[in-house]
């Protein structure tokens, strides 16, 4: 720390700003309409300074943390700081202007103090319904951004405190569930107000000069700490090359991801040159997504106590050539890059660094948000509905620890909506909701388990789109650990007996990515989520852990015997003698 900075005030202001961003998020949760917001918390709240540099954010959804930086900075540049007036709120969801993907709506409000802009409040959130070719915004086989929904460049939805009715009208007449979009937008804007109220209180308590000085120091503090963290990673060049994604929903072929990491003292370069050409289908990442994923990986492997603000981003350079899957060019489709390629960028970075930082990385996680978008008319209310839900998967095995079961992938931190909430709102009935036993990648530290959700359709007709990864490619294990089990999207037609995949049931091009399939009353869907990869060779796993897996039913006895080469006695304990014998035979 610089000696002339009052450490205490610095911390007080930093904590205050983070608390403020959290409060904005709680207001969002309490007042929004879509389950994706109020149960899933698929949004982020952040505070930027007058230059458009982030000074605080609350932990909601990591997918946004890179994009929100560009959106705000570029929006200020595009509109021009002099054109922001007191009481304005700018709306923006253009993936080609810094955004993650089209459904991600951002609202930005300038905060004025004595006639001067001192900060920007910013909320970014995943709107459930955005128009476009399918309800719920996730068309698995879209090929252009125009199919993905309505697109707003930065426009003032509120002009000096007054609703800009024209913008509201355009927005609400282009989405399928305008009541919900209205409620959600109001919640986002309301949360800006909560943040503004709190920030002004802080300025009144101190003074503008102190605030301005301290917010710079807060950024400096994070930058210093991030540089120290990077210094602790051995200098060198680290590479990963592997498949980023099963297919793009249009052509059923896997696409490559390449990353070269250069660690140079206290700076890092992430170079994605050599990754696959831009896909026709909607799996491409915007630059914002690639940046978010890079920072996300970096924050995971460095000290998570560092306040995330502009300062942490400074020691990092990202190279993502335009026209590739890591930097989509207009008007390519990009709705799925944010959810499905983002996690593989993280895992690719872990894989590249695993030899250098074995204690800090995990094997591949299940790697899919397993998105399901449904829409139709609810038979009980005759109301049009649209919903987008995401699922969790098993996480990869870690240094000295198993991977966690059933968690949201690292690009989000979204909660799943309760069954009782989903069934109360949409015409679906759950048949089961259960961990997938044996779905983990085996290893000294096994991966976490995925799970399955089985639902029956209750209305005459429902429109279904899905975006699912790791249906073909297995989540990798590290250091001799086995891969996790794949995900799946299965259908059982009314009165049918067996579940079948989508190619066989509906003739889709890909099994995991498709749009607008009409399913009928009595049809059942089974979403199977993937397991995490194992860490270390299975034969090094402690016997006690294997016994516990079997007695608790995470792994069946048969599979345990086969994968870990162990023999059980009649009390379900491992027979050490027999096991030794078996292992010596198999050497």
């Amino acid at each position, binding site marked *: 720390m610089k000696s002339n900075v009052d450490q205490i005030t610095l911390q007080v202001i930093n904590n205050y700003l983070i608390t403020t961003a959290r409060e904005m998020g709680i207001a969002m949760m309490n007042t929004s*309409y879509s389950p994706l917001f109020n149960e899933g918390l698929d949004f982020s709240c952040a505070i930027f300074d007058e230059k458009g540099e982030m000074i605080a954010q609350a932990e909601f959804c990591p997918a946004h943390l890179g994009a929100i930086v560009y959106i705000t900075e570029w929006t200020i540049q595009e509109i021009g700081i002099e054109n922001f007036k007191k009481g304005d709120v700018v709306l923006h969801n253009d993936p080609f202007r810094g955004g993650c993907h089209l459904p991600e709506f951002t609202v930005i409000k300038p905060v004025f103090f004595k006639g001067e802009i001192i900060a920007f409040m910013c909320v970014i959130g995943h709107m459930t319904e955005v128009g476009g070719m399918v309800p719920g915004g996730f068309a698995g086989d879209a090929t252009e951004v125009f199919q993905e929904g309505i697109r707003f460049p930065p426009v003032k939805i509120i002009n000096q405190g007054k609703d800009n009715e024209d913008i509201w009208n355009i927005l609400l007449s282009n989405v399928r569930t305008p009541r919900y979009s209205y409620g959600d937008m109001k919640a986002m804007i309301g949360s800006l107000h909560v943040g503004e109220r709190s920030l002004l209180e802080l300025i009144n308590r101190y003074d503008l000069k102190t605030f301005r000085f301290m917010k710079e120091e807060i950024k400096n503090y994070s930058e210093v700490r991030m540089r120290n963290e990077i210094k602790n990673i051995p200098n060198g060049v680290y590479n990963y090359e592997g498949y980023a994604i099963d297919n793009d929903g249009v052509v059923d072929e896997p696409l490559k991801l390449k990353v070269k990491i250069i660690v140079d003292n206290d700076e890092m370069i992430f170079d994605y040159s050599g990754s696959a050409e831009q896909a026709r289908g909607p799996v491409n990442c915007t630059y914002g997504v690639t940046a978010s994923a890079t920072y996300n990986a970096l924050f995971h492997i460095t000290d998570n106590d560092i306040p995330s603000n502009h300062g942490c981003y400074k020691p990092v350079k990202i190279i993502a050539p335009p026209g590739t899957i890591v930097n989509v060019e207009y008007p390519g489709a990009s709705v799925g890059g944010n959810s499905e390629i983002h996690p593989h960028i993280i895992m690719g970075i872990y894989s590249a660094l695993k030899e250098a930082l074995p204690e800090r990385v995990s094997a591949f996680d299940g790697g899919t948000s397993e998105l399901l978008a449904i829409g139709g008319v609810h038979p009980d209310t005759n109301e049009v509905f649209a919903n987008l839900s995401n699922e969790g998967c098993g996480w990869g095995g870690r240094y000295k620890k198993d991977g966690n079961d059933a968690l949201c992938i690292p690009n989000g931190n979204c909660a799943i909506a309760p069954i009782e909430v989903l069934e109360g709102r949409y015409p679906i009935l759950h048949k089961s909701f259960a961990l997938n036993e044996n779905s983990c990648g085996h290893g000294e530290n096994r991966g976490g388990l995925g799970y399955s959700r089985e639902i029956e359709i209750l209305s005459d007709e429902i429109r279904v789109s899905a975006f699912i990864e790791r249906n073909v490619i297995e989540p990798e294990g590290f250091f001799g650990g086995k891969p996790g089990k794949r995900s799946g999207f299965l259908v059982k037609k009314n009165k049918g007996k067996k579940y079948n995949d989508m190619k066989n049931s509906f003739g889709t091009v890909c099994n995991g990515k498709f749009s607008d399939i009409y399913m009928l009353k009595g049809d059942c869907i089974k979403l199977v989520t993937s397991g995490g990869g194992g860490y270390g060779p299975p034969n090094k796993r402690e016997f006690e852990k294997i016994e516990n897996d079997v007695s608790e039913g995470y792994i069946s006895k048969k599979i345990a015997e086969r994968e870990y080469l162990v023999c059980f006695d009649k009390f379900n304990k491992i027979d050490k003698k027999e096991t030794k014998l078996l292992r010596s035979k198999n050497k």
Partner: protein
Amino acid sequence: MTLKVGIDVGGTFTDLMVFDSENKKSFAIKVSSNPKNPIEAVLNAIQFGNLKMSDIETIIHGTTVATNSLLEKKGARTAFVCTKGFTDVIFIQRMNRKHHYDLKWDKPKLPVKRRYCFDIDERVNYKGEVLKELNENDVVKLAKIFKREKIEAVAVCCLFSYLHPNHEIRIREIFKNVLPDVKISLSHEVFPRWREYERASTTIIDAFLKPSVSLYVKNLQNGLKKNEFNSNLLMMKSNGGVTDFNSVTERPSDIILSGPVGGVIASQYIGKVTNRKNLISADMGGTSFDVSLIYNGKFARSKGVELEWGIPIRTSMVEVKTIGAGGGSIAWIDKGGLLRVGPESAGSNPGPVCYDRGGDKPTVTDANLILGRLNPENFAGGNFKLNKELSYNIVDKLANKINKSIYETSIDIIKLVNWNMVNAIRLISIDKGFDPRNFSLVSFGGACSAHCAELAKLLDLKDVVVPINQGVFSAFGLNMSDMRVDVSKTANMRSDFIDLKQIKSVFKTLEKNSLNQIKNEGYTGLPKLYKILEMRYLGQNYGVDVTLPDSVTNFDEKSIKKVFELFALEHKKLYGYDLPNEIVEIVNFHISCIGKTKKSAPEKLGNIKKSTRRSKRKIYFEKKGFLDCDVYLRDDLVRNQKISGPCVIEENNSVTLLHPNQKTIVDEYGNLIINVN
């Protein structure tokens, strides 16, 4: 039979507050706790205070037994039973993580083994209609398994049971036949609200706690009986009301906050005595800081707590925000070179370095000692001496690292812990739309009063009350508590299809249930009912509570319109906007049923000076350095006495610090009213 005794068993001390209704006197007893056998300390205290069991009319007890057995994971061998296909709901949970970027984090687990989770064929839909009848054979089979596996408690949580409880009830009937001694908790009774994971989690914790809480209650009852105590035994619940011991064994999830709630009740009472309706109740001990808000004489309610992240316990409770800030909070330097305080604490063992019990990390108490704010000879009732030398050495090391003097460093430690507490108070007050300038801080707990004047100043609060019996404040609160039952029902209704008849009928049922329950818990008087509606705009997922004013007695068009207006006002206060033409949805009906009990009247303080044992001590203040300060003894203060800072007022278990220019007056009951500005 004239004594009413409040007993608060804490980690370090067991406090008794005794009120004698014959001569209208009250007095306190304090003994060391015995964590291994808490009941022994209670009996010790009774003996120590020369109380005759036959004189005691009522004992009111506040306990942390439920919290402790949860944190120590000591409870029943518990099984979980639910609708077919859904046992893993409690393992999958809600899928989110505690931290964003933490690969070391482990997902929390409920205290039930997966091999003891079973499903039963039955299904109810979101309208409460039965899709599949209960398969009773499944239940009988399960009962046999439970017998074989020596299961001690069973939690039952069927989907939508809050709309159709019959299946859960029948499951209990069948289990009871086969397993008469096994404790059973049903989700629709424990938490009759939607969200299956949260309901299951609460039900499992309830079942898990039943045997240990029952045992605790039985031991206490027996211990007292052996000493010929045969009168009323009551226990504090998390909702701020008391209940009889038997109800507690039926619903242990109701007493999670039994410990800290006493202090909130006491604050509420002090508010009445000192004519203050808006209060922030602040309790700072060795490891934690508990704050609650009292607005217009009523404490804020919350709908649950997570003792461990991701393991929700949902029940109607007094809102208590707890953070890791106390006398034992540890000061450290982070990787960026910043001085930080907490949340890690040295607790009471080994405790701060100055306790000389092997603690080797600098704490808030060490900083206070260095600054002269604590008296090393008179700490914790003089139980042990503080070693200032040790504090100096350890804070000196810290000071060298950040290049500051030992005193500046100590001031920084105090400032940081104060700001942590300020942020906690903000969350329950300012951030919910309350104006701090209308609130008074009630300061208690061993460590709070050395910080309270500064906290109030930072928050711009009206003033501070340091109550007369702050050393035994929670026990005092237990004596001041009423009986209280909270009942609620999930029932959806929209403002565009209002069914006045149904509103009346739901409230009527709740009214009947609450009156029955409070009677069963032993209340004989006429309780007062408060009706609360949880409402939201149609589409929102979280509601806003609106307490119906007394004027709304009969539900007609006019009064319901008023109710919706109140909702819009509340929404605007919380979030800055309302949606005038939007449909409002009523989602939950709630009744708080409060049975007033006999309480002691405040005793007036004498106005004759007992002695003037005033001494002087040097105390360090920011930017001023060491100042000569008066040291007062709380026991010597008299009615209407005015005292100016800088000074300290010492009492048995606490010390109150006044900064320069701050003034306090002793009110007629002996409370210190501090003017901070």
